[in-house]
């Protein structure tokens, strides 16, 4: 497993997301079909999925998806996990041999809860405890990589076309209420399994198409709040910003979206006084968190999914609704492929987030 | 509206142009005793001196009358004015009615009380005809006596000298140009005249023109006899008020007018050398027979005749004249008498520079500039505007005198054309 060490790799991509806002779970075959439709947008160097609601039997446990380079790495990783967590169940994630998929790492899954004594001695909230553990694991355990760590969700990713990755993980055997997918077109080779999307932090997952010109500023801003950004990917930055704003600062999701893709100053200038003050403050205080450059992202989390475009819409993004279902994708075809007759289909405006929340959950 | 202007010189032209600034339609008739389109009387000396021909004496282009819609009666003498019936009687007995009348008949030469003044060879020097007659006989070697060392006399003398005539000037006063120069300045000018072979006799006058029917010489008051072929009388002009003789129009030395150039009769105006108007320097009523006054008064009269209410506020004597290349500009009171006057002067004799400023109540009321006449108009302006010169009066005689010496506020108002309150 080659790690893209300290190299930020620009990439073009395809993204797709589907959600049942009533919380009904559905199979992963739809999302595979949808992302497969956009094969042209990937180059076989990365694909991945995030799925929510797939582990109802362990919904109180943090589900760790892990990549290991080799057996010693697994041993070291498990040593770390065992030290900090009580593991309820552990085992390899079932995969299927797919011809186009090669050089896969060891892929394991653990359902775990923080050890009471470790948690209380850390003085941290369990979520933060998990975050710190994930950061340490990635940093300190050579050859181990945390793919995802949220509750009742998981990320499945690797080097290959996304539909092949879906096949590899047999995602049609899982059912969830939110699915997001990513097909990657990195501009260098070879792809690294850990570098594929989605990028996750706890239950937050990000699939991202685009490149952040503001990466350097965003990263320095995050540094100040203790985020290290070791992955050197834009997507990591997006995930951390969402984590910072929504989890740590308790900000409404739509406000977080407005920080990342704020209105133009001249637009703000024309707003009513209240709104003007609101957006001026946002931009003033969070200027370095503005995501600049072309992007479309789908951020999913336990309660919902949002899709966001950069503020001048330099990447395509289409959304559709049918009943309780919400779809977002890089291309309309990827939605029509799995939802031929949507109630509504539209291209979200630049910087205007598409937000889908589970029934009864506030934004 | 029916306007009649009697006269055809500066005041008349000013009248026409004044009327036309206001009234483009009304009928204007000019009645002129002389048979010429308007010409510049001061230029007759240039003509005599051969500096220009008849064409260049024209004061306005020949299409002036047409352009301004003027009905021109040349060679027509107006005899009298009927202020009751508002008509003018011409020499032929014909009458012309008017609504508004401008009398701009100018001046006529004042003839000295001299025996034999009716002899042939005795000339005046006022009109174009005078100049032409004189020029016809002013041959090299001939001799002339000019009676009067004023502006007209000396210009005649200069013209004659330039024709090769031997000229003697007889002046009653103790200096030449006594109305515009003081003793010091007059002496410098006289020196220049004498350098150019003009003989100047002061404190004397001609008592008799000698000769049978044509003049052959003059006898001076002191008994001296001077042989000559011609005599030019130039002791002065007086307002030509003949036409209003016997009317109710108020005449003192000239026809008395108010600031609007109106006589005591509502629809009758007078302007130029015939008029007696307020002098802003002497602060009394005066006849000031100078060209700029004539035009300006005529223009003010014309505007008012056409319904405006313009005021003539520039009445004071000022003259610019040169003799043999020695220029001089003088204005206002140049030889003040009285303790209320403050006099500044300087001279550089070898350069013939002489400057003098006369101040009263911190206002400039007169000046003389000899040779260095540049920018003298600033001084004229100070007189006209009755400007307070106390802040810079020590600079008035400076070579580079100008606005830079004036207080900033005063200067800015003048130069920027804006008054800041």
């Amino acid at each position, binding site marked *: 497993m080659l790690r893209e060490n300290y190299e*930020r790799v*620009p*990439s*073009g991509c395809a993204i797709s997301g589907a959600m049942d806002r009533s919380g009904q779970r559905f199979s992963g075959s739809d999302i595979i079909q949808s992302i497969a439709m956009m094969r042209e947008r990937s180059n076989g160097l990365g694909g991945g999925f995030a799925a929510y609601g797939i582990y109802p039997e362990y919904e109180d446990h943090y589900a760790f998806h892990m990549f290991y380079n080799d057996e010693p790495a697994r041993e070291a990783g498990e040593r770390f996990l065992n030290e900090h967590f009580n593991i309820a169940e552990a085992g390899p994630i079932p995969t299927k041999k797919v011809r186009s998929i090669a050089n896969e790492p060891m892929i394991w899954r653990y359902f775990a809860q923080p050890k009471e004594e470790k948690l209380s001695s850390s003085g941290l909230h369990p979520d933060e405890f998990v975050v710190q553990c994930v950061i340490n694991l990635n940093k300190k355990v050579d050859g181990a990589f945390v793919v995802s760590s949220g509750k009742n969700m998981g990320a499945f990713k690797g080097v290959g076309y996304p539909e092949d990755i879906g096949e590899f993980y047999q995602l049609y055997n899982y059912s969830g209420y939110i699915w997001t997918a990513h097909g990657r077109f990195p*501009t260098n080779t070879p792809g690294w399994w850990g570098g594929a999307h989605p990028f996750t932090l706890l239950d937050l997952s990000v699939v991202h198409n*685009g*490149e952040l*010109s*503001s*990466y*350097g*500023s*965003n990263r*320095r*801003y995050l*540094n*100040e*709040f*203790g985020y290290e950004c070791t992955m050197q990917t834009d997507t990591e930055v997006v995930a951390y910003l969402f984590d910072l704003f929504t989890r740590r*600062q308790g*900000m*409404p999701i*739509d*406000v977080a979206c407005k920080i990342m893709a704020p209105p*133009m*100053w*001249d637009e703000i200038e024309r707003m009513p006084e209240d709104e003007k*003050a*609101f957006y*001026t*403050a*946002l*931009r*003033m*205080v*969070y*200027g*370095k968190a*503005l*995501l*600049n*450059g*072309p992007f479309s992202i789908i951020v999913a989390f336990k309660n919902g999914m949002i899709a966001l475009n950069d*503020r*001048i819409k*330099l990447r395509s993004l289409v959304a559709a609704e049918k009943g309780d279902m919400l779809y977002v994708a890089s291309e309309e075809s990827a939605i029509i492929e799995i939802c031929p007759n949507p109630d509504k289909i539209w291209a979200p405006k630049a910087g205007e987030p598409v937000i889908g929340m589970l029934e009864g959950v506030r934004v | 509206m029916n306007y009649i202007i009697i006269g055809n010189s500066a005041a008349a032209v000013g009248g026409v142009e004044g009327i036309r600034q206001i009234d483009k339609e009304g009928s204007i008739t000019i009645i002129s005793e002389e048979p010429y389109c308007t010409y510049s009387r001061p230029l007759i000396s240039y003509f005599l001196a051969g500096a220009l021909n008849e064409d260049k004496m024209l004061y306005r282009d020949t299409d002036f009358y047409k352009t301004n819609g003027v009905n021109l009666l040349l060679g027509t003498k107006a005899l009298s004015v009927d202020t009751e019936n508002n008509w003018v009687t011409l020499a032929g007995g014909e009458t012309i009615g008017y609504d508004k009348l401008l009398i701009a008949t100018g001046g006529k030469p004042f003839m000295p009380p001299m025996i034999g003044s009716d002899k042939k060879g005795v000339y005046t020097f006022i009109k174009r005809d005078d100049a032409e007659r004189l020029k016809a006989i002013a041959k090299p070697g001939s001799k002339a006596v000019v009676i009067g060392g004023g502006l007209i006399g000396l210009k005649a003398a200069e013209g004659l000298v330039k024709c090769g005539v031997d000229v003697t000037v007889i002046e009653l006063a103790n200096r030449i140009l006594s109305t515009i120069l003081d003793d010091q300045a007059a002496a410098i000018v006289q020196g220049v005249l004498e350098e150019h072979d003009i003989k100047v006799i002061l404190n004397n006058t001609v008592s008799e023109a000698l000769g049978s029917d044509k003049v052959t010489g003059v006898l001076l008051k002191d008994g001296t006899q001077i042989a000559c072929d011609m005599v030019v009388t130039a002791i002065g002009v007086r307002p030509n008020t003949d036409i209003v003789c016997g009317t109710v129009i108020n005449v003192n030395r000239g026809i008395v007018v108010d600031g609007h150039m109106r006589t005591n009769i509502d629809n009758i105006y007078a302007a130029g050398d015939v008029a007696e108007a307020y002098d802003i320097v002497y602060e009394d009523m005066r006849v000031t027979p100078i060209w700029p006054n004539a035009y300006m008064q005529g223009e003010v009269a014309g505007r008012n005749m056409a319904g405006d209410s313009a005021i003539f506020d520039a009445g004071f004597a000022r003259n610019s004249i040169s003799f043999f290349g020695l220029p001089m500009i003088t204005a206002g009171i140049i030889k003040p008498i009285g303790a209320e006057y403050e006099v500044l002067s300087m001279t550089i004799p070898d350069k013939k520079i002489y400057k003098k400023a006369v101040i009263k109540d911190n206002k400039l009321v007169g000046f003389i500039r000899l040779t260095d006449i540049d920018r003298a108009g600033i001084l004229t302006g100070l007189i006209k505007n009755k400007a307070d010169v106390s802040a810079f009066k020590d600079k008035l005689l400076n070579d580079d005198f100008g606005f830079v010496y004036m207080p900033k506020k005063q200067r800015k108002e003048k130069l920027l054309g804006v008054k800041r309150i």
Partner: protein
Amino acid sequence: MISYILPEFLVLRDENRCIQCEVCVRQCANDVHYLDTKDGKVKSDDAKCVNCQRCVTFCPTHALTIIQNPQEFKANANWTKKAITEVQRQAETGAVLLTGMGNPEAYTVYWDKLVLNASQVTNPSIDPLREPMELKTYLGRKPDMLEFDKDGKLLTKLTPQLVLNAPIMFSAMSFGSVSLNTCESLARAATELGIYYNTGEGGLHSSLYRYGKNTIAQVASGRFGVNPDYLNAAAALEIKIGQGAKPGIGGHLPGEKVKAEVAATRMIPEGSDAISPAPHHDIYSIEDLRQLIYALKEATDYTKPVSVKIAAVNNVAAIASGIARAGADIIAIDGFRGGTGAAPLRIRDNVGIPIEMAIAAVDTRLKEEGIRHQVSLVAAGSIRNSADIVKAIALGADAVYIATSALIAIGCHMCQKCNTGKCNWGIATQDPQLVKRLNPNIGARRLVNLITAWEHEIKEILGGMGINSIESLRGNREMLRGVGLTQKELDILGIKAAGE
């Protein structure tokens, strides 16, 4: 005693072009040119020439050229012409060498070792003529986070900020060191541009109060012209601790420059020397600074951000951190190439560190301490063009101060004789005859032109990077690469080498 110092410059006059119009004679305050009445020809006394090029610029026939005096000493890489001449000068005067403007010595200009990034393929560059491109910048203290109520309404009350249409401000230049027309040019340009100019330590002339909304009022060690009206007239206040051109020393405005208006503005007697002490005598430590910061805030009822300006010196990062924690809203750092109206030459040319290193170090230090987002950082000290600005911001500055380039825009020709008070361009002088040479109408227009041009260029560069708002450049060192720098220098600047 004969002077050993040779003329620094030679004035070349093309006799085929000279029309003896004497414009040069009238324009030279140093009396270099004169009309020789014996032959009616205009001639020059080269020894007096400072190469300000006023005459060259004004000569209507372009008959004049000024060149360096080619006279050399015997070649010596150590004892250069400059070194020898300085010894000669001090041997003749017994005085400290005084000079003006910024450090001219051949230290590395790091701006010129930095190159910028642009988008290719993976990220579209943005055309600033077709797409919005935002340079608006807010300077002032920012909270760690904003708080909202249940309905998403903003609860946090923000402290006062400066809002700039472009991340550029005119740096401190006092009335006294520069002419009133210079101050007015800067004030008017700042107002028109929607940016700020800084009064320097000379107070605020009564005629400039109307530009208060775009004024930063400085409070320096001499406290010249400081009074409640002055403080309240401005949009922000700045405590000047140090200046890049002369860190560690005070200022000295000679009495002959303290004419009536300067005296009234500075609140000192006419003709008296205006001496700023080296330190603020009420600031001997960081807690004293905090007291002054809050004294100024109290005096202005907490309506204005307070900046603290320091010279870039060895431990600038730690000092900046202290200033941030002392309550400053803005920290201005002035690098060692920053200009001055007058400074001892040895100080100017040898004390302080480059702004590029300082700003990188400060930004990183504050980031590491997690307080960078709280304060605004202004970089000063020889920003020469828009690329320097882009680089400064990418290194971590929020905005830059410019002064020398602003003066060049309004006529300065960098002759470095500000200290003589005979500035032929009407800038660093109080001689009324010279002051009026700078028409503030023209001065303001030239400044507006310069900044407008720079704004265009910055937008063009940002667009090329695929950035449409200046905040995404701030601290974005990914956009920089170093050329010809050592690894240590790259590390301090926090950038990679070109090709990495």
